[in-house]
């Protein structure tokens, strides 16, 4: 290398050093020229713009879509709520400002500071809300004093408004602030931190339709942040209108009928699977969430042992008890084990191996056929038939009716329940199945667990010719131009293969339950409409043995949580079934006494109001 001419010493290379440095200098000169143009020649214009022409981008919230019932009655809408906010950078003296606001609005400074601290998570250009949902008079007061309140602004935000909040709480659900996780998973630009999104039920499941699209405004403000003019606006698109299959009046009737009991009720249109009513009690007031739930209110709701926030119609599981008996009878008839005329002698108990399984009626029902067994809810008839049928055929029949699996209901949280079988028990406990367990399952106890929604679907399928229909709660979704963007058609899950004769036998029994002298569901009787039904009383703790029962004096106090659940499934009118109802009253003691009247009131109100 030393012998050759050094490449670096070549004149052409030396020239390149000079050239590169010169080129760089030229480019910098160009930059400086541009800076000169901006900062000296255009200075006045640009300085003027920086003083006068301060632009801000405002996001306008899209009003959430309203929700209506099947008759066009409003269930949820929005109302404008005023909130007092501050622009952080415009504040002159924070403590002084809070002091003034505190006096003016009659709130303590601590709560203002707390809101302020929460607001620090927002980007710097976003106003921090200090007082939410303020009265109009206070808003005017703030406006009058705005000179002394630099940085304070009044924002209007649409807030959920419920004409009858209690009636629809569990169907509609509520909103809450978007979580970071949700924010990350959402489409870019769709949400910002602090946005409200559906957290429960319909608000959550149909978030995409309900939320609408945000609008944008580019505005010019002066030094104090006052609006000078609107530069550009892109209007917010309100969320779509959602029409439910729910009948608000029926919903209200169910809640009235429950009184202060806990439980759930579901009413279905038997031909379409449309949910006419879905209530869960105790209910809660979603308006609490709309105006921002307080810590005390939240504790009260979550601490209540009767779970007011839970939609028991789809997320609570109950043994179906005697409401399960029609299904056992159908399965037995299909398998050729029993006909409606099969007579079984009930002496008050059935002995299987070493165990004695008692009928609810100690003295027994005597000679009993299917109709009598349903009417008087004889356990022994079903013990015997269930035992001959075997658990696996029973499980297969129950699963066809939709028990033991979810129905694909559109509100979140639907539970599957349990329909036990040999295979199920082996997987679950690694244990063999015992005959005694079949006996218990045949009266809907033991491992069998269902949701009220499943019971309603089952009942509907028994009276609509064996069609298991997907329960649906949304009828249609319309945008604001009136176009139907989505329409929900009835969906058949399964057509069952029972003969009309077999189904008629069941109907006869259910009509007898309500309308005949010894029927357990007589309290559901209505003169004007013929109702068919079936009572159920499901034990929360085991049934007492003979010996224990003899020790009872008659009116012992039973603690609330040990009391049996009361169930009733019903349909009407018997001649041409249209509506199916399932009612579960938690710890209601007696299906016939407590649950049946609720179903009756619902059916009565439904037809009353339908004929109007």
């Amino acid at each position, binding site marked *: 290398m030393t012998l050759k001419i050094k490449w670096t010493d*070549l004149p052409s290379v030396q020239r390149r050093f000079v050239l590169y440095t010169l080129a*760089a200098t030229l480019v910098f000169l160009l930059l400086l020229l*541009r800076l000169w143009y901006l900062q000296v020649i255009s200075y006045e214009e640009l300085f003027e713009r*920086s*003083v006068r022409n301060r632009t801000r981008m405002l996001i306008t919230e899209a009003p959430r879509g309203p929700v209506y019932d099947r008759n066009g009655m409003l269930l949820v809408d929005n109302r404008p709520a005023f909130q007092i906010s501050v622009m952080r950078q415009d504040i002159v003296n924070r403590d002084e400002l809070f002091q003034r606001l505190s006096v003016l609005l009659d709130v303590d400074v601590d709560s203002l500071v707390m809101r302020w601290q929460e607001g620090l998570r927002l980007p*710097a*250009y976003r106003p921090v809300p200090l007082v939410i949902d303020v009265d109009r008079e206070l808003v005017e007061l703030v406006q009058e004093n705005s000179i002394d309140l630099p940085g304070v602004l009044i924002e209007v935000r649409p807030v959920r408004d419920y004409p009858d909040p209690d009636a629809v709480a569990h169907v509609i659900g509520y909103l809450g602030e978007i979580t970071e996780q949700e924010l990350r998973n959402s489409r870019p630009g769709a949400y910002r931190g602090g946005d409200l999104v559906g957290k429960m039920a319909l608000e959550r499941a149909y978030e995409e339709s309900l939320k609408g699209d945000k609008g*944008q405004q580019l505005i010019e403000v002066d*030094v104090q942040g006052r609006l000078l003019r609107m530069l*550009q606006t892109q209007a917010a698109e309100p969320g779509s209108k959602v029409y439910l299959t729910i009948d608000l009046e029926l919903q209200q009737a169910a809640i009235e009928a429950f009184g202060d009991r806990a439980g759930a009720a579901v009413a279905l249109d038997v031909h379409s699977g449309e949910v006419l009513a879905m209530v869960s009690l105790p209910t809660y007031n979603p308006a609490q969430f709309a105006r921002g739930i307080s810590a005390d209110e939240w504790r009260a709701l979550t601490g209540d042992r009767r779970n007011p926030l839970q939609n028991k119609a789809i997320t609570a599981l109950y043994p179906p008890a005697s409401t399960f008996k029609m299904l056992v009878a159908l399965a037995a008839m299909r398998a050729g084990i029993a006909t409606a005329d099969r007579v079984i002698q009930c002496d008050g108990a059935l002995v299987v191996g070493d165990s004695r399984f008692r009928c609810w009626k100690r003295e027994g029902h005597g000679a009993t056929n299917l109709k009598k067994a349903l009417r008087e809810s004889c356990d022994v008839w079903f013990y015997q038939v269930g035992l001959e049928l075997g658990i696996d055929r029973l499980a297969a029949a129950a699963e066809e009716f939709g028990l033991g699996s979810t129905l694909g209901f559109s509100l979140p949280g639907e539970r599957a329940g349990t329909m036990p079988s040999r295979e199920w028990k082996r997987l679950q406990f690694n244990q063999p199945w015992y005959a005694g367990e079949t006996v218990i399952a045949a009266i809907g106890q033991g491992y069998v667990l269902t949701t009220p929604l499943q019971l309603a679907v089952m009942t509907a399928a028994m009276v609509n010719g064996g069609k298991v229909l997907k329960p649906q709660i949304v009828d249609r979704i319309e945008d604001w131009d009136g176009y139907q963007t989505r329409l929900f058609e009835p969906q058949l899950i399964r057509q069952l293969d029972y003969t009309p004769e077999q189904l008629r036998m069941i109907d006869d029994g259910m009509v007898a339950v309500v309308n005949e002298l010894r029927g357990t569901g007589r309290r559901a009787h209505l003169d004007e409409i013929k109702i068919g039904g079936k009572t159920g009383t499901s034990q929360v703790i085991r049934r007492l043995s003979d010996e224990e029962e003899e020790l009872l004096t008659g009116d012992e106090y039973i603690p609330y949580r040990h009391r049996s659940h009361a169930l009733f499934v019903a349909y009407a009118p018997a001649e041409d079934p249209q509506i199916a109802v399932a009612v579960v009253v938690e710890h209601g003691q007696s299906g016939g006494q407590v649950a049946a009247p609720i179903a009756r009131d619902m059916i009565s109100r439904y037809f009353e109001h339908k004929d109007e």
Partner: protein
Amino acid sequence: MFDRRLIYHFEWVLLLTVLLLAGIGIINLYSATANWTYGAPPLYIKQLVWLGSGLVVALLVCLFDYRHLQYLAVHSYLVGVGLLIAVALLGHTTMGATRWIHLGFINVQPSEVIKVAIILLFARLLSKTASPQGFGMKDLWRPFLWLLLPTVLILKQPDLGTSVMVVLIALSMLMFAGLRRATTIWLSLLALVTLVMSWFGLHDYQRARVRTFLNPEADPLGSGYHIIQSKIAVGSGGLFGKGFLEGTQAQLSFLPERHTDFAFSVFAEEWGFVGCLLLLLLYLFLVAWGMYIARQASDQFGLFLAVGVTAMFFWHIVVNLAMVIGLLPVVGVPLPFFSYGGTSMVTMMIGVGLLMNVSMRRFMF
């Protein structure tokens, strides 16, 4: 191995220039984020920590003889490309682009690694093949292929700014090694065609940026917002500026990204043309001093290394400034030593370390 001459030849000028720039940057950052009531520790403190870490890195890079790096050039290139592929497969997505990779304790941006790797690789390549006649088209296919792979990978992320940087750095080094006249013409034509073609390969947001650059007022609400606000900030600074902490554009938060890519517009607003002039002179001096170091280098590898690092500084400075004052479309390129950001600081400081290394060993053969 350690030589007392190293201390005698310590590269003070470069180090002090960089420290001065970084110091101004941190003071400016203090102002840019003055009304950020959240985030602890404040960003200027964080940036101070980054500067400290950067200095340590720069000094570490000085410790060994840069000539050893020739033999690691290909390895570092392979590591860089490997990381780019890794980021494409399992990277971390922020704001729609996948640029980061988690390495346990630290997040690495492979597109930064590749900038240094390309400089090393091209310095090695060119120091072996440069000839007085200059390169013809036939000599260029190899460097072209080396360059193509990482560029495509960075474009895929998508990160237009960095891929443009990598290409500009490599081109500057190639041109310095010398091209034949015919080749220069061919390359220019090729560049033109690529430019036209790439318009159709751009992402929507990138195309929007270019369009708004040509006519920002057409969409003041959307993508034109950055450019308009930045121009107002710079221009309203006037000859002497509005004063430290007094820039209304910056303080009233009209300027987006004012602590990172748009830090210079905060500076321009508060210090005016005079401040900008001084800052630009300082940057120009940095570039000129880089060329001076290249010229003094004891071997060809050192020369090309210094040219490459200087080109990296130069293009970052120029593209960032041009973007902030509305001469170029908005591409995400930070201003070296000035914008907030640890990755950029560390990359630039590695560059400083390499330059100092070359300078301190100029009398050692």
